[in-house]
């Protein structure tokens, strides 16, 4: 079942044209056949076929089935799935079998989604390339020899190669949007505080958010509907009980104001901007009004982000002391993880706090205000996802060069925006994604523009 839309797949399964068991068995077989060359899965869920059988039984009986009935879903390895290993692609947690389900997993199961297994990622989500996994790098199925992006490298590659129907990733500074762009698929970072983080292993608590990767916009919208909504046993959640997008994403752009900033062009490779400009022309042709917005401090978001993140990541990793499970993190982790811990440890000292952490929280306010102002004048902001094309896997690149991938995605995490990525074109066979950012809780507008983009040739 290649090239069939998510909604079509669901209908097929519900009608009985295709049984859930056949569908899932096919997916598992494909993973066994093809994933060795991609390395997008770290563990396969042995229970998945059983679950598929249950769903088929329900369908046969004529019982109601959930929104995701029969779909095979990949889960990034930093999300707890009871009984499977949430390794975060690190030796630290290589033998940590999850003792509980993340709330998003409970919700997926409730809607009859089938967990296919745990996806590969950058170690502890510290990366944008998919190369830092303890279990080996993930390949980009859409661009041979190139990095798939990260840190949700596994979920993106699995979706791009058709090994799963949908996947869950996490985005702290671009980790869903970045690989969605490089792999030529759809990704969405929901508004911070919309999707429960209970069960997501922390990278940076102020920024982390779980979101979907999907072959199409409707799949992303559907999965977001399932996982979003207030969780009462969590402290920081919007007062939103549930969301509905499917009826709101009719791709009608009349009267929609789309903001673009000259800063995007300043920061981005011209090869990428060609594709972006083309997309914007398309959107304008479809009835949207293009508005120029000012984002004078946009490029300051990235260093600010890393300053805050390092302090929070240092704090988050104190529990990995090897006593209750796993190993002591500093003993076994990779370079980038250690780099962030060391940096966080250093700047969270009493004498430096004002200089770095507290100051960064101030700059965050500045950037947040700027973005809010821009979105007051527009409905969405549209532009590139990454400033440069993905490098070759294994290429020697400095930490600073790696951080540079995050220039265009970190602002949304700092400012509390939602952001989606949809394929916009390609250069030399390398996919390029268009990023659409919206105000807090305005996923509907973002999805609308994304849906429209699906109509572009």
């Amino acid at each position, binding site marked *: 079942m290649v090239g069939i839309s998510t909604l079509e797949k669901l209908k097929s399964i519900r009608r009985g044209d295709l049984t859930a068991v056949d569908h899932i068995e096919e997916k598992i077989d494909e993973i066994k056949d093809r994933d060795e060359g991609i390395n997008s899965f770290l563990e396969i869920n042995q229970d998945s076929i059983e679950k598929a059988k249950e769903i088929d039984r329900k369908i046969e009986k004529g019982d109601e089935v959930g929104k995701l009935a029969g779909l095979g879903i990949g889960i990034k390895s930093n999300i707890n799935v009871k009984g499977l290993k949430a390794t975060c692609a690190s030796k630290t947690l290589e033998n940590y079998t999850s003792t*509980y389900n993340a709330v998003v997993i409970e919700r997926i199961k409730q809607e009859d989604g089938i967990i296919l297994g745990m996806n590969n990622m950058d170690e502890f989500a510290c990366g944008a390339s998919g190369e830092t996994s303890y279990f080996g790098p993930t390949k980009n199925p859409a661009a041979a020899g190139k990095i798939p992006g990260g840190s949700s490298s596994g979920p993106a590659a699995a979706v791009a190669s058709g090994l799963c129907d949908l996947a869950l990733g996490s985005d702290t500074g671009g980790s869903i949007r970045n690989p969605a762009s490089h792999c030529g698929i759809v990704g969405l970072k929901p508004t911070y505080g919309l999707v429960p983080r209970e069960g997501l*292993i922390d990278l940076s608590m102020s920024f982390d958010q779980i979101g979907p990767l999907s072959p199409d916009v409707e799949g992303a919208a559907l999965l977001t509907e399932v996982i979003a909504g207030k969780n009462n*046993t*969590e*402290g920081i959640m919007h007062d939103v009980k549930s969301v509905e997008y499917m009826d709101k994403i009719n791709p009608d752009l009349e009267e929609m104001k789309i903001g673009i900033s000259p800063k995007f062009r300043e920061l981005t490779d011209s090869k990428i901007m060609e594709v972006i400009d083309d997309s914007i022309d398309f959107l304008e042709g479809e009835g949207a009004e293009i508005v120029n917005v000012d984002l004078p401090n946009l490029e300051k978001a990235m260093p600010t982000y890393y300053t805050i993140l390092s302090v929070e990541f240092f704090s988050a990793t104190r*529990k990995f002391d090897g006593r209750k499970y796993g190993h002591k993190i500093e003993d076994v982790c990779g370079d980038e993880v250690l780099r962030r811990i060391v940096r966080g440890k250093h700047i969270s000292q009493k004498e430096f706090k004002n200089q770095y952490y507290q100051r960064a929280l101030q700059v965050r306010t500045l950037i947040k205000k700027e973005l809010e102002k821009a979105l007051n004048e527009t409905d969405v902001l549209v532009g590139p996802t990454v400033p440069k094309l993905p490098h070759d896997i294994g290429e020697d690149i400095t930490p600073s060069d790696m951080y540079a991938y995050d220039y265009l995605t970190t602002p949304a995490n700092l400012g509390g925006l939602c952001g989606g990525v949809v394929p916009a074109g390609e250069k030399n066979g390398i996919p390029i994604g268009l990023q659409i950012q919206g105000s807090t809780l305005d996923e509907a507008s973002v999805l609308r523009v994304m849906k429209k983009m699906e109509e572009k040739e």
Partner: protein
Amino acid sequence: MKIGFEIHEQMHTESKLFCECPTNYRDVDPNTNVCPVCTGMPGAKPSPPNKKAIESAIEIALMLDCDIVTQKPIHIQRKHYDYPDLPSGYQRTSLPIAENGELAGVRIREVHIEEDPGKYDPVQGKVDFNRSGIPLVEIITKPDIKSPEEAREFLQSLIRTLEYTNKIRPEPSTLRADTNISLEGGQRVEIKNINSVKGAFKALKYEVMRQKRTEKVERETRSYLESQMITVPMRSKEIADDYRYIPDPNLLPILINQKQVSEIKNNMYEAPHLRKKRIIEEYGIEENVAEVLVSEREFVDLFEEVAKEVDPNFASKWLKNRLRKVLNYLEMPPKQIPFSIEQLTKLLKMIKSEEITPEKGELILREMVKNPDDPEKILEKLGLEEMEKSKLERSVEEVINENEEAVEDFKNGKDEALNYLSGQVMKKTEGKADPREVMKLLKKLLEEQGE
């Protein structure tokens, strides 16, 4: 000498501070009342803080005459250090919820809330997380205490005050204290691992002795070893140099509003220092009497009940001197008193009106505590009714006749002999006589004899 304290007490709630696990950690097997949050599982997120814990802390702070922080959001911070009983590698602890209090002449710097770590047995190398996450109130004093004796009194006073709220975990005591002490102009030494009032006293006594015979007292942190009643230096590894405090990004700050505080104030039990002030004003009783009455809330409650019908001055003194004595002897706390207010009130009225003697009153009281009943009935039961005058006269006469030597002594000016004779009369009448009547009669009859 300057002594200060940092005191931790568990608050009495059904569930833990940041998760819904039950708090009865002593009643269950190790690692039973646990969940991903209080065991530091990867990805676990704290749930919003327990409302009752916050309200209890506010009430405790009001008991200590503190100002509640109402004007600004109060962050819950992460205090990072490495220890086996800390599942997440940090402890969640709030900024002050109250400041500037006072108790028994000692200033309270601040009150805040935090979560209890798990229970680590350092000798056997094992950890039980049942206790991890239980809400604690921390009370920090200024170094206003001037001696180990004062420290002991202060702690006793503090525990009594905390018990007034009924918001801290009942026995066995969950008090944990760190103390700091500096002698005249010397360096400040901190002592940890104190779990009782006695321990605090012993630790401070030892420290004073140690510091006096140490030439150069270093600023350090020491640990109190209960079994040996000494303090030893704590390894630097156990003392974190920098806790790297940050506001917990997973918990929104708390903002206490004045309305909430007023509500708690109006519904809470009146603090002992306020109660004392009020009963002195309202009932006109003496200060040292009031002090004893407010030592336990049930005791002062009892007083105010009986004071409705009995002269407060009389009642207060009687409770302080007689009832307190009987209760102490029986080791019975006021909350366990079995007789009713009506019964006590009646008894007091009987004594005040001189229907019975105070001594008889005490006898009836002792019986009332064991077998609560109408004091009139007990009076009958014990056969304590007023002795007939003639019967008493006869007993006095008999004693005079049976104790010639004592009578001689008295006539020769030895007044103590009179007491001896009086005692013999009491013995003969089985305590039923009124000692004052006995004295009067003895004197009268002896004088008459002398004539």
